[in-house]
């Protein structure tokens, strides 16, 4: 959990595979990189078995680029498509047994704080809608109510894509799927509302058709979770297989869905605003100057 763990043991560098050497010498560890620079440095995420054109993959890629301190970050995931990519990144990944990811992350966060004190070590949970809103629902909610300081990111593809197309709590009402032939009978769960009620300090919805916005919300969520409290990001990451979206139309779908029902939203507590503006220079959260009193 520091820059040291990505360095070579002296004398062994020349025996390492080229991609590993590129990662150490030209990766983002210990540097400040942004989404606009991708293609000019070696990214942390590597080859993975996710489907061609998967929006979830794109979101995971952008999220990992956006981590403020990748060398001090641990990701936690669970069963589902997302972990197939997240686990192929050059940062530690912990697999929470199905639905346990927020419980595992709670213990991990506390342990890291005991071990490293005030030095920030970021824990980021990335799991699907099934793992988070259905099977891991209790652990997710409880970690928020306990104000555990880590970031939770839902990769919301609105279906159990990994197991053949069953409906999840996050599937839209009346949606017909391969394993839900009569259509879903109840509304999409309001996880955003529950995140706010349970005390998350930063809550945002985002769609990966705007990479810089993804970068911005991930950075804010991770920074807020260091000091203020839990943060939650809900990302629309379509399943082009189960929803039959041609791969070259995935971004078109993302744009349509964003306009239609997945608009960008951001909720941030006053305490988190003050923290981001004072410690990290987020000008948009600086208190607005009081309007001059009009003289009569």
């Amino acid at each position: 959990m520091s820059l040291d763990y990505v360095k070579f043991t002296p004398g062994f560098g020349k025996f390492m595979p080229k991609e590993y050497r590129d990662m150490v010498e030209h990766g983002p560890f210990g540097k400040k990189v942004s989404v606009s620079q991708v293609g000019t440095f070696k990214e942390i995420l590597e080859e993975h078995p996710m489907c061609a054109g998967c929006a979830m993959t794109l979101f995971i890629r952008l999220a990992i680029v956006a981590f403020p301190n990748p060398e001090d970050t641990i990701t936690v995931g669970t069963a589902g498509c997302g972990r197939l990519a997240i686990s192929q990144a050059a940062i530690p990944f912990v697999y929470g047994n199905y639905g346990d990811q927020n419980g595992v992350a709670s213990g991990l966060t506390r342990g890291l704080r005991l071990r490293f004190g005030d030095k920030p070590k970021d824990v980021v949970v990335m799991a699907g809608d099934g793992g988070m809103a259905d099977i891991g629902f209790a652990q997710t909610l409880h970690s928020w109510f306990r104000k555990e300081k880590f970031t939770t990111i839902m990769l919301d593809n609105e279906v159990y894509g990994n197991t053949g197309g069953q409906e999840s709590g996050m599937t839209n009402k009346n949606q017909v799927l391969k394993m839900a032939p009569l259509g879903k009978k109840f509304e999409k769960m309001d996880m955003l509302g529950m995140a706010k009620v349970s005390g998350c300090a930063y809550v945002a919805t985002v769609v990966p058709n705007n990479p810089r916005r993804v970068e911005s919300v991930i950075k804010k969520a991770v920074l807020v979770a260091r000091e203020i409290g839990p943060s939650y990001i809900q990302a629309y990451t379509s399943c082009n297989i189960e929803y039959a979206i041609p791969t070259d139309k995935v971004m078109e779908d993302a744009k349509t869905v964003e306009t239609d029902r997945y608009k960008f939203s951001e909720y941030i507590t006053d305490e988190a605003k003050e923290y981001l503006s004072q410690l990290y220079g987020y000008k948009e959260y600086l208190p607005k100057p009081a309007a001059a009193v009009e003289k009569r």
Partner: protein
Amino acid sequence: MYLVANIETEICAATSCKLCTQYCPEANTILYDNAAGEDKGFKYGAAYVAVDRCKGCAQCVWVCDNMAKHNAIKMEMIDQIGETALTENVTYGEKTSSAVLANPVRGQM
């Protein structure tokens, strides 16, 4: 054989929008060479594809055609693409990357 993305350097180097590098779902696949347009007198560098990583989804084509409106990317058969970039031939530098081109089927001759 299968399709992979191929970027027209002349068109790309005239604009430098870099959108395809940001929208590709695969990491370390669409890369950017700051010096790609230099010898041809272009103002900017250009993006290029490490074709051994490309899964052929064509998302970059949609982004280039519809968002950037540059029409610089086409899907081409891997055995007909000619000399192109492969991951093993990519070199990273100071805020840039470059590749020695090679035949994707035969490798570097």
